[in-house]
Each structure stands twice: as C-alpha cells, then as structure tokens.
C-alpha cells in the first residue's frame, strides 16, 4: 500500500494523456478512459482514506526511490486524504455528467475537454498529496493549464475571460514560486517536513518572512480571495456548465487547502498568527469578501454570475476559518471546503441541466421550472437550504463551528459577519426558489423549448421523466444526497479526519 500516494496522481495523468490520444480517434473511448482513470483515482483515495484513518499514520512515498529531502515525497495524511477524496469524487461525478451537457453547449469542442478534466483533477490531487513545496507549484500549474483549456471552450466571451484568468493565474503562480525560492535559499530545502524541522531556528529571518508572504499571496490569488477575486465572475459565467461545475467547487479550495497546509505543517505553530499577522489578514479580507460576494450576488440576473459571486463569499468562509486559527474555527473552515464543493458543484450541474432542457440562464426567465423539471428543482431546493445553512444540511454545521470559533477567538465582528451573510444568501437564493416554483402567469405554457435554445423534442427522448438524461441526473442526485448525508454525519468526518489534521494548533 505504500505506493498508494503515487498511484493517485499517476492514474489521473495517465488517463489524461491516454484519453487525449484515443480521443482524437474516438471521443467516446476518450471519455471512457478519462472517466475510468478518475474513478480509479477516487477508489484509491477512498482506500487511502480508510488506511490513514485506521492506522492513524500518514502513508509516505519517495518518488523514484530518491530519499527525501533530496527527492520528491508524496504524503497521504489525514488532510491530504480528505482533499484527494473530495477532488477525485467531484471529478468522477462531473465526468459522468459532462458528455450530454458539452455536446449541447459547445458542440465540436469536446476533444480536449475530457483529457483536460482528468489532468485538472490530477493537478489538484497532486497539490493535495505532495510533501514538497516546489512540486506543489508543478501540480498547481498542471491544474491551471488544464483549467484554461476547459474554460476557454465556453461562450463567446469565454476565451477573453480565460485570458484574463490566465494572466492573473500566472502572476499567482509566479508569486508562489518566488516565495518557494526565498524559502529554499534560506532553509536549503523544499521538502515540507524538512523545512518544518529547520524553520524554527530561522523564524526571525527576513527572507523566510518574505517567502511566507509571497507564497500565501500567490495562493490567495489562486483561491480568488477578495479583493483578488475579480477574475472569477466572468470566467464562471462564460464557461461550459460542466467545466464550471468541476472548477468552481474544487479548484479554489485546493489553494485554500495549500495555505492551511503551510500554516499547520510547514511553518512553526503560531507563526502565521504571532510572528507575522498572515492569519488575521486573511480573516479580515475574508470577512470583507463574504459581505461583498453576498451583496453583489443579490443583484445578479444571470444564474451563473450569481453563483460566481456567491463563490467569492463562500470561499471566504474557508479564509475565515484560517483567520480564526483556533481548532474549532479551522475545522469549520475545512469542513466548509467539502460542504461548499458539494453545494456549488450541485448548483452548477443544476444550472447545466436547466440550460440543457430549456436554454435558460437568466433567473427571471426561470419562472415555472418547478413544473417542467420537478426533480431537478427539488435537488435545487436542497442545495439552496444547504447554502443558506438550514439544518440538517452540510452548510449548517460549518457555520456553527465557525461561529463557535469566532466566539472563542473573541472575533465579534466576524461573528456578526457570519450572521449577516447567512441572511444575505437567503435573500438571493430564496428569491430564485420563489421564481422556479411560481406558476407561469398569462403565458402559454408552450414557451417553446427550441425557441429559447433548449434541446429538441427528439433529444429529449430517454430523459428522466421529461427532465434530463440519467447521465446528467444521477450526479445531481448523488450530490444532493451527499449534501444531506455530510451534514448529518459531519461529525464522523470531523472526528476521523479534521481533528487529527488541526492537532498542530493544539500543540501550541
């Protein structure tokens, strides 16, 4: 089992490359390979998760047999297993969902899509699993390049929005790499465990401080933390639904995870809170981001744009957990990574389903959808309840933990921000629930599907009860169930994975 950490990214990269080659001949086979590879990586992640939680020890693997700190090391510990399972799980679901949606939204551009999806997941899983600061950068760029390819195939404005994202992403990656350079020159190593062992003597060093700040700044850009979020709305709005459904839930989260990793396992305890006020800065910026994202989301008419601004606010919950820097607060932040990934993934996939079925993307046009596609809309209600934080859905518990953490840290302003933002998100999401379940008035129900850009009657055959085909509906159903189950059983996750992960904070 000690090869397991290596197998996860390897199977994904392999699947990505193979899928590209095969995909040139047969798109269907290409898709199947990408899906198989991702599903295999998911299963491996689950195995790793079980292994790590039952033994309580991380699984380490030295790449190419080179002993760390010389060689690159993969470390599957509690937090890494948590992230890889999430990333590969979402990847698998989106790959199941993607073909029908892509064929409808961007016909003829799908050859690159499936390999890119597998490579994106490979990059993100690699970032989660690596024990090496420089290697993290490599995976970060793999993920970024795959993301650019996925996003650029969207609507007409897609390529331009992606170009902007590419420039900003390059700056973020550059900052991070520069930071790694500073650390390397002062510590003489890029292996995380090794750096962690040597850093305590160097905490006063200016170049270490510079390195830390640059790395966090780069990752914050990648994470889309307010006010560095400006690339996000255009990108998500113009991307194909399935690409947005893959990228929005997990991409920014992995960068957030990388910051947590630096804080917990690379830099000495309390370095981010006492030596330099990185955590507090992230916290305040996040608090502002939560309010900003929620308020701007209220005014949006485009479904995808609303989700994008909501993401600006939601990723900041994770930032708030980092800012609190106490165990329960950080647990709340980390739990929100999974919660938000499930909810936002679900919402984007529902958006894709609506678009597939009716061609609609503007919220005011969605009146009466509750009749047209009731099951999809029930899933939508579950997602909304979770976003607003109604128990027993997942969203409720991360908020409770964050609030407890805020009280313990005497962070009353942040406490108030969480309260306020719950209400704001209730406003923009329930407004939409009201729209979709309202009956159409004065309009002939023959709001012709093909006229608004939806599928034709012929394509609709074989769809679930006049909704979307099973390949699109099953991922939606699984995610809705997961949103509830993760809420009800959240404590199992907290006890098995997150409490061990935040243990360094308790160590003092």
């Amino acid at each position, binding site marked *: 089992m000690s090869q397991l950490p290596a197998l996860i990214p390897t199977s994904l990269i392999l699947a990505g490359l193979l899928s590209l080659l095969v995909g040139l001949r047969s798109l269907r086979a290409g898709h199947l390979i990408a899906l198989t590879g991702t599903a295999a990586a998911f299963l491996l992640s689950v195995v790793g998760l079980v292994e790590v939680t039952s033994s309580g020890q991380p699984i380490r693997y030295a790449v190419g047999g080179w002993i760390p700190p010389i060689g690159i090391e993969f470390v599957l510990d509690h937090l890494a297993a948590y992230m890889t399972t999430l990333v590969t799980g979402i990847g698998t679901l989106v790959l199941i969902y993607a073909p029908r949606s892509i064929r409808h939204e961007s016909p003829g551009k799908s050859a690159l899509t499936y390999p890119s999806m597998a490579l994106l997941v490979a990059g993100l899983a690699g970032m989660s699993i690596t024990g090496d600061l420089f290697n993290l950068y490599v995976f970060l760029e793999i993920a970024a390049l795959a993301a650019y390819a996925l996003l650029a195939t969207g609507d007409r404005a897609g390529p331009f929005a992606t170009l902007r994202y590419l420039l900003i992403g390059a700056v973020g990656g550059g900052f991070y790499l520069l930071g790694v350079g500073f650390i390397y020159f002062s510590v003489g190593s890029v292996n995380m465990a090794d750096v962690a062992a040597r850093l305590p003597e160097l905490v006063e060093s200016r170049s270490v401080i510079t390195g830390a700040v640059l790395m966090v700044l780069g990752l914050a850009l990648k994470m889309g933390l307010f006010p560095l979020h400006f690339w996000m709305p255009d990108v998500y709005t113009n991307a194909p639904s399935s690409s947005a459904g893959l990228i929005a839930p997990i991409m920014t989260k992995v960068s957030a995870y990388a910051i947590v990793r630096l804080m917990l396992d690379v830099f000495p305890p309390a370095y981010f809170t006492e030596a330099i006020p990185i955590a507090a800065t992230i916290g305040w910026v996040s608090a502002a981001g939560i309010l900003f994202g929620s308020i701007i989301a209220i005014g949006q008419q485009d479904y995808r744009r609303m989700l994008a601004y909501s993401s600006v606010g939601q990723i900041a919950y994770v930032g708030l957990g980092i800012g609190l820097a106490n165990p329960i607060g950080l647990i709340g932040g980390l739990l929100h990574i999974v919660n938000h990934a499930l909810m936002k993934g679900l919402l984007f996939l529902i958006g894709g389903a609506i678009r597939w079925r009716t061609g609609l993307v503007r919220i005011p046009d969605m009146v009466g959808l509750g009749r047209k596609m009731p099951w999809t809309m029930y899933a939508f209600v579950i997602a909304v309840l979770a976003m607003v934080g109604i128990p027993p859905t997942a969203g409720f*518990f991360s908020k*409770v933990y964050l609030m407890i953490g805020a009280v313990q840290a005497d962070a009353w302003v942040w406490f108030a921000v969480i309260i306020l933002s719950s209400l704001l998100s209730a406003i923009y999401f329930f407004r939409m629930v009201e729209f979709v379940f309202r009956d159409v008035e004065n309009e002939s129900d023959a709001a012709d599907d093909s006229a608004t850009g939806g599928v034709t009657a012929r394509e609709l055959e074989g769809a679930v009860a006049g909704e979307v085909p099973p390949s699109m509906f099953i991922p939606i159903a699984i995610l809705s169930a997961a949103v509830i189950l993760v809420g009800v059983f959240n404590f199992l996750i907290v006890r098995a994975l997150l*409490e061990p992960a935040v243990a360094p904070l308790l160590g003092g």
Partner: protein
Amino acid sequence: MDGFLDLAPLLAILASAVAAVVVPITGEKRRNLRETWTVLAAVVKFTLIAMMIPGVLAGERYGMDLLEIAPGISLSLRVDPAGLLFATSASFLWILTSFYAFGYMRGANEAKQSRFFSMLAACLSATIGLCFSGNILTFVIFYEILSVATYPLVIHSGSKKAYEIGRQYLIYALTAGIALVAGLAAIYAVTGTLDFQPGGFLDADMGMGFLWMVFLLFALGFGVKAGVMPLQSWLPNAMIAPTPVSALLHAVAVVKAGVFGFVRLVGYIFGPELFGEMGAATFLAIFAAITILVASLIAITKDDLKARLAYSTVGHLSYIVLGIAILAPQAMLGAAFHMITHAAMKITLFFCAGAIYVHTGKKKVSQLDGIGRQMPLTMAAFGVGAVGLAGVPLVGGFVSKWYLGVGALDAGLPIYLWVFLLSGLLNAAYLVPIVTRAFLRSSPDHTRVDEASLLMVIPISITMLFALLLGIHPDGVFRFFSLAEAIVASVTGVTFTGGM
C-alpha cells in the same frame, strides 16, 4: 416496555416524517388512501406520545442520544414534562386538524393538496422533534426545519400577495433562526455544553455583557415565533394560509414553539434565579405586557375574522411569555397550563372561522349577523371559545388565568394582575359581540339550520369539549395539569400539594 418507550420519541417524530414522504407519492388521484396515511400517522404519533405520560409523571425521562453531531454534542432526544405537555397537545390537535382539513380543503376545492398535507406532516415532525430535544443544538435543528417547512403552507394560494407574505415570513423566520444559532455558538464556546438542565446551567460568573447578549439573541429567536411585539407583524399576515394551517400552526404548533423556547430559555438554560437577577425577566415582562394590551386593542379594530383571531393569538402568546417572565411558581404553572387551554380555545375559534368561510364564503365579522341560526353548533362552539378566552369560569381559560394572576400577586407585581384583568375585558370586547351578533341579530341569509360538513363540525365539537373539560376538570384530559405542575417542580423545586 421501558426499552420501547425510550424509542417512542424517535418513532413519534418519524411517524409524521414518513407521512410527509408517502403522502405526495400517493398523490391526488388516490386521495382517500392519501388521507389514510395522514390519519394513521397522526394516531400513531399521538398514541406513542400519550403512552409516555404516566412514566414521565412518575419521574422517568425517556429518550436516547442518536449520534454525535458536533464535538461533545449528540442529536439527543429526552422527554421531560415540559416537552411532553406541548407534544401531547400538538399531536392530539393534529388528529382533529387532519379530519377538519380534509373537509376544509375539499370544501374549498384547494389546489396542491398533496403538498399541503405533506408539509403539514413535516411541520408536526419538527414540532415534536423540538419538544423532545435534549439540548439546544437539537432544538435549533428542529426549529429551523419547522420554519422552512411552514413556508410552502404560507404561500399555498400562489397569489402575488401570498409570495410577498412568504418572503416576509422567511425573513423573520430565518433571522430568528440565525440568532438562535449564534446564541448556541456563544453558549457552547463558553460552557462546552448545550444540554438543557432543569434550573438552568449558565451562571453569573460568565459576565453580564455576555449573558445579556445570549439572552437577546435567544429572545429574538423565540420572540419572532411567539409574536412578541415588535416582532409580531408576520403572524397576522400569515393568515393568508388555508385555515387549518392558521388553526394548528399559527395558533398552536409554530407559535407555541416560540413560547416553548422561552420556557426552555428561562427554566432550562438560564434558570429563574439568574434570569431574575440579571434583569432579563423585567425586560421580557414589559415587552410581553405591552404586547398583551396593544394586540387586544388592535384586535377590536379588525373586521376580518381571521385577522381578529390572529391578534388575539399574539396577545395570548404573550400571556404565556409574561407568566414565565414573572418567575413566580404559580405564574409559571399558569403559563404552562395556558399553553394548553389557549390551544384548545383558539383552535376551536379558527375551526369555526374556517367552517364559516368554506360553508358561506364569509370572512368578515360584519357579515355574521344571524349566522347562529344557520350554523348553531359552530357558533355555540365559537361562543365557548370566546368566553373561555375572556376568562369565564368552567372553561379552561379561567384556570390558567387564575394561576397567572395569583402568581403576579405572589411575585409582588400586582401591575401584571391588572394587565391580565384588563386584557380579559378586552378579550370579551372583541369576541363576545361576534357571538351576540350571530344569535341575536337576524339576517335573510341565514334562516334555516344548515351546518358545514361533518368532517368539520365533529372536530369543532371535540375541541370545544376539550376546552370545557380543561375548565371543569383540569387534570382530566391527558393529565395536563399534573404535567404543568411537574414542569414547575423541576424548574423551581416548588411542589403543589393537592392541585386542583
């Protein structure tokens, strides 16, 4: 048997949860079968709850911890006298409301009946869940579910007005919910526990600023549902929902969940001693007293029957809140018992209002001249409810008001006795004229006896008898009076010898 009864609270919650799922699956086309599910769930639920009464009075505390949902906090069900009192009344009235609602919804030819009965069942699950919650987190989870499950019922008619009101309802309910979450987070961060304790578990060492913040968060959270002014305005608006909802949810289950929250807050979180010491009791009492009087005055001005009853509800909910805030054992006893008597009387009145509407289409008080000749049974029941609310002996309302008044004197706060007396007069002023108008005036519309459907008249008669029985033999129905005494005993340590 005891092992089974430990499961009873969970089964009681699940009974209606199952109905909430099965009802829409069965659907409109097989509506008799659908109705069977509702009745079955209601009867099973009530039986399970009633079975626990003797044990709980003997000091048993049934229940179980289901699973840990946060560090050190389980999803915990515990049956104590307070929860059982509320649960028994809500589940008993649900049976009657179900039959009544079949008559009402069919009579009024309402749309979306499957959704209606499903959500009603879901609301009952949540209500019973919060009755039996052993800690604040479990309570808040059910409280939030209750808020959300009521929304589809409020917007039932689907009109523009209904959606507007639904929006207002959600804003109020979700604000209240998040305030509770904030309050529980604050308590947990400081104490590390959220379990309800008879007599409370907070203490003065935690600092007055902190305690006041916690109190205000919870008061906001419960005050909305309990309709304490200035948080009441959603309640009269919510009367746009079909009458069975107004009767069961907005006179009993939902609004009393807020009142029940105050019982938990004062008796089981703060404890009466600390609550009085910090001055929160006086603060709450003043708001409640003002609400009682102002709501009664507004009720007089309302011509719409349901609106008048809604303001009456606002006033009577604050009777209970005031009784709790007075803190004297007798007042607390009166408050707890008023939860039951008010439920019995007010549901009767709403049932009557709905029967009149479905049968004659009349909604306004001014249209009711002589209607007593057409619907004598309905209007007789209305009369019982009306004089009961005013506090006339032999109806339940007298008993609870008596103890509320005695409690106010005991506590050395005679001013509140005057509030109760004055409001009793106002109650009479806005309700009794309806009865006299119905029987003493005449109108060409109503000449011969022609009652509403039996599905409605029978539940009305039963709730009327229920209200009367509570006044004649308070402990005779489901031992409500003993349960109320047990609540006071567990919170204050004061036991009453002899009782009624």
